């Protein structure tokens, strides 16, 4: 299969659409828009899985597609909306990296993914290697989103988008054993995170869903700079209370 053949082109189109939505996720600043983009990515993932199921004549992939659609395009976005409403975040504007900067970082990450994936997979079938490049880009963009976002919900969406990339990779490899089980298990992990946000109501506990606010509770004397803080709270992060996220 190569360019110009319908099955190949559609698989590419769907993978490309997922990548595009990853970029949308990267620069959106309103929490609700982030959730909408994530729901769309989930729906595209379901279509990609179903298409691979048809192409590889692997009926179990339809199950993966169904699970992905129900959970990622419908249920999880609904749950996230409920959390946003409950925490009164629906007008929150998040100071992510600027649009230009996030786009450039995103393009650099995709270039890296292509440079890594294409040369080493010359032996593999064209569709497998290009799927791998697309999936790796989605995974890395999800990580980038987790790094640049400070709001707990956006970070969770970043993790889920990363996981979408994993499922895209798994369904793209023809004959992958346990693909349904593994993609469902990965989904359980994601649901567990969403449940964590829901149960702990991080905003109520810390008066913010800004993980930067965690810095006050690092369990050691305040005057001692902790190396592990660097992961969640770079110095100079504005306190959430000043950021007009009260709705």
């Amino acid at each position: 299969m190569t360019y110009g053949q319908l099955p190949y082109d559609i698989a590419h189109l769907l993978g490309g659409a997922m990548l595009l939505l990853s970029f949308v996720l990267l620069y959106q600043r309103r929490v609700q828009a982030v959730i909408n983009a994530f729901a769309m990515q989930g729906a595209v993932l379901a279509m990609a899985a179903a298409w691979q199921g048809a192409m590889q004549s692997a009926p179990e992939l339809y199950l993966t597609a169904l699970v992905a659609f129900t959970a990622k395009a419908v249920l999880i976005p609904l749950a996230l909306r409920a959390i946003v409403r409950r925490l009164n975040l629906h007008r929150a504007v998040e100071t992510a990296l600027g649009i230009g900067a996030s786009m450039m970082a995103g393009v650099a990450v995709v270039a890296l993914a292509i440079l890594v994936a294409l040369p080493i997979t010359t032996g593999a079938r064209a569709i497998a290697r290009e799927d791998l490049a697309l999936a790796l880009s989605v995974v890395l963009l999800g990580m980038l989103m987790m790094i640049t976002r400070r709001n707990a919900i956006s970070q969770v969406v970043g993790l889920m988008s990363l996981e979408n990339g994993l499922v895209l990779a798994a369904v793209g490899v023809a004959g992958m054993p346990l693909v349904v089980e593994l993609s469902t298990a990965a989904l359980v992990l994601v649901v567990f995170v969403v449940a964590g946000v829901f149960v702990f109501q991080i905003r109520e506990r810390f008066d913010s869903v800004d993980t930067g606010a965690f810095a006050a509770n690092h369990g050691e004397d305040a005057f001692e700079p902790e190396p592990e803080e660097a992961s969640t709270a770079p110095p100079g992060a504005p306190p959430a209370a000043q950021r007009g996220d009260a709705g």
Partner: protein
Amino acid sequence: MPLPWIVVFFPWAAAVVLMALPRLRLAAAVNLGASAVSLLLALLLVNMPDGEQGWTRVDALNQPLLLLSAIIGLTTSVYSYGQIEAKGFDPLRLRAYHGAYQVFMGAQALALLADNMGVMWVAIEIATMASVTMVAVHGTAAATEAAWKFFILCGVGIALALFGTVILYMAAQPVIGHGDVGLSWSALRAVASRCDPGLLNLAFVFLLVGYGTKAGLVPRHFWLPDAEAEGPVSISAVLSGLLLNAAMSAVLRAETIVRAHPGAIPPGPFLMALGLASVLLASFSLWRRRDVRRLFAWSSIQHMGLAAFAFGMGGAMGNLAGLLHLLGHSLTKSAVFFGVGMATRLKASQKIAAIGGLASSHPALGWSLVVAIAAVAGLPPFALFASEFLLLTEAVTRWWWLALPLGLGVFIAVAAKVNVVQQLCLGDATPDAIAPPGRLAFLTTLGPIWVHLLLALVLGAALPAGGAAMLARAAELLK
């Protein structure tokens, strides 16, 4: 049902029962009983011949680690039995705590026993979710933060490990074909030399970063000090004792597959580099800790670094040193956590400054802790001395210039631990914050500590021939 499956499913069945039990004493006793049965099952498993049972396999690599995890599972339940009343858990937290404990025990057993790399991934995922629940069980702001950090970092870690697993299959697919066999460790290892080396390299990078996060290797170790400082002490004991080992065994299984291809980039130097970085960062960090449980969590990072370095060097001697180090570290570190847990309960603080002169105010606890910390620091005659001695001599003969920074890291860490022994156990006693707890609490603390120290002594100084043969076979398996 084959025995290895029973070893996995029995704790899960116990977890279901425990989640239904609202009474504190009863639940703690059932937890203890379940752990005792698990130990019996593990003893049977150690005597099983090597072999595969569908998705699981029994071999010399997982038998000693599994026996160790069952022993620590039992002693930790004993400790937990004596301490649980003081926690003041409400019924919901109590159910979550005991249920998650047994779910964790089953999942880490599955992670050790799995032959199928996909099943291994699912097992590590379940173990992560169970341990996050246990870390968060106190419900304080610090515990929630620790659990969140733990979950986000390890969530990304295991997601990357799954990506690595997918790429591993992608590399093997043209050779191995379809079906479950495509993720079997033994099958992958057998065909690895005919797979695409580029894909194998890429898979290993993701698997190393992913499972390496769980093993607490620098630079993705941030979750470990928080997780071990904020959850209940029994969780710190099983996290450092068991979860890190399960993750390290996953890294090793991945490494052996990639190493089987002569054209792939050798994975050993990656492990050595991460290991050395962990040892150096952790040994300097040890000097800056004011919280005693964080200090020993950093010490776990240092010891996992040493083990990773040993496995990275490879060869019969390096692998033997690494395995001995994993076993010795689990035994001694959980003994230290039991003692530290009792001390922090007495002083109602985790600050090192608030805990002082234990040897004069509580001689039995104080001196036990002195011996346990000496053992974890790698002083003779305990297991960590033997493994560090093997490791350093092997490093000197093969890469003397690497042995210098490694030796420096070990030396700084020993000095930091001698320093902390003086602060915690010797010197003037600080006042207790609570009335002394009953005999039960002391017995269930000191008993497990001395059982662990005795085992570490046997492992270090007088390993029986059967045990030595098993470790040698495991080292051979990793070659």
